[in-house]
């Protein structure tokens, strides 16, 4: 096994978003909020979204977790806020998350990265 292409948790983007996310918090009156647990470690993550007329107007996340789950959640929420359009956000998939993170992940850590996406998908199921 070689170092090439292996996971690097100490990249600036992971550190910034994983530790000092600008999107961390809870919303006052979210349209939806979902909480999910990572089956691997039991860490939990909550995503809050406020939607007005098919547009996301605010979103954030909360919960404690590893760098990867926190960074992925932060980057995903950032992307949601950038895209805004609900129909486009519904198309987010695993690739979206991997691209945002920009580092390759080992098998076991993929779960951590996808926790926020799973929360988002669950949110879409309950959006009125």
């Amino acid at each position: 096994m070689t170092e090439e292409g292996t996971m690097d948790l100490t990249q600036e983007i992971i550190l910034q978003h994983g530790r000092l996310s600008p999107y961390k918090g809870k919303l006052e009156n979210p349209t939806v909020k979902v909480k999910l647990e990572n089956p691997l470690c039991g860490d939990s993550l909550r995503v809050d979204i406020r939607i007005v007329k098919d547009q996301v107007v605010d979103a954030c996340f909360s919960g404690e977790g590893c760098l990867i789950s926190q960074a992925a959640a932060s980057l995903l929420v950032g992307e949601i806020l950038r895209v805004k359009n609900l129909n486009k956000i519904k198309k987010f998939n695993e690739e979206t998350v991997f691209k945002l993170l920009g580092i390759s992940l080992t098998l076991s850590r993929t779960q951590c990265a996808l926790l926020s996406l799973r929360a988002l998908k669950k949110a879409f199921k309950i959006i009125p």
Partner: protein
Amino acid sequence: MNKDFPILKQKINGKNLVYLDSAATSLKPKQVIEAVADCCRSYLANVHRGIYQLSEKSTQEYESVRGKVAKLINASPDEVIFTKNTTEAINLVAKVWGEANITKGSKIILSVMEHHSNLVPWQELMRQQVTGNRQQRVVLDINDKGELDLSDLDNKLKGVSLVAITHVSNVLGTINPVKEITQKAHQVGALVLVDGAQAVPHMKVDVKKLGCDFYVFSGHKMLGPSGVGVLWVKKEIADKLPPFLTGGGMVSEVTLEKTSFAEAPHKFEAGTPNIEGVIGLGAAIDYLQKLGMDKVRQHEKALTEYALKKLSKIDGLTIYGPKEEEKRGGIIAFNLAGIHPHDVASLLDKDGIAVRAGFHCAMPVHQRLGINGSTRVSFYIYNSMEDIDKLVQSLEKIKRKLSFRVK
């Protein structure tokens, strides 16, 4: 000795592998790999079945391992039952002994430091046998030092049918006084099951001296292949128990209407067993016996003492469990302030250091400690002081990289 372990020749991320996860499973020496290969290559046939030479040779080899296991733990061969692993051994007891002996009003004592394997089968048994009555499970707590709190044991033992307790904790490393617990349990007529998964691979275990009634462990944690575990049951108890799984290999006479069962241990080993796995376990025991279990323990004790000293010097690092190496096996769980155990493990992996992170199949003890997981290192015969130096260096590096801006 490390030349006996082919996996250690590997480079991980360009670095020599430092394997610190033997509590999960151990590496295998070439003597074990060869024994399994040789069995498959030159004589493997089904056991207790054929009357041709190969089958007899297989049967002999297979049964001779039963003898080796018995010798290792000072038992008699017909008390040694081969299972898949520790987990299956405990489930076997929960089923064949539990279903006959745990009834409404029965009490079981467990401890907060049990592995899920020595907790869930009892929860399930209690759920089936005594619906909804939570009072039936008594849990031994730990004190601030990570040792079992036995202060109220006499009281807690009243009316208890079974004590199920780990010999060595797979998180805290604590070596529990199972002999003393057994003596007290027997005074009130309770039986004792000891989970030896983290003990037998690492120290001399004598089931007669311990005095317990059931003792279980896994071959894969003691240099052997996966898929073989051991259940030791005291003879007079085994004789009275009904069989576990039924079918071939565990019977003496079968008609279409009814069946008489073979004696222990065969009545608990239905179907074709993991023959080559058992042969491999035999080679593993030979390897350990040649080293001597006292030497194994000494080596790990020295490593643990050194690691405890070195790790405790790292600022922001919390070690769980007893502070003295005499009181613990070669297992150290810890946390680095502000850094998630999974990130610690991923970053150590980059330096070729393999450790476990998370709950190590023991969530209750983490809840008890008020932590959401830990990083765990565990040692075995192939580890050295140098491995610990590398671990400490890598942890210092991780801290430097990640500890800036800690909230």
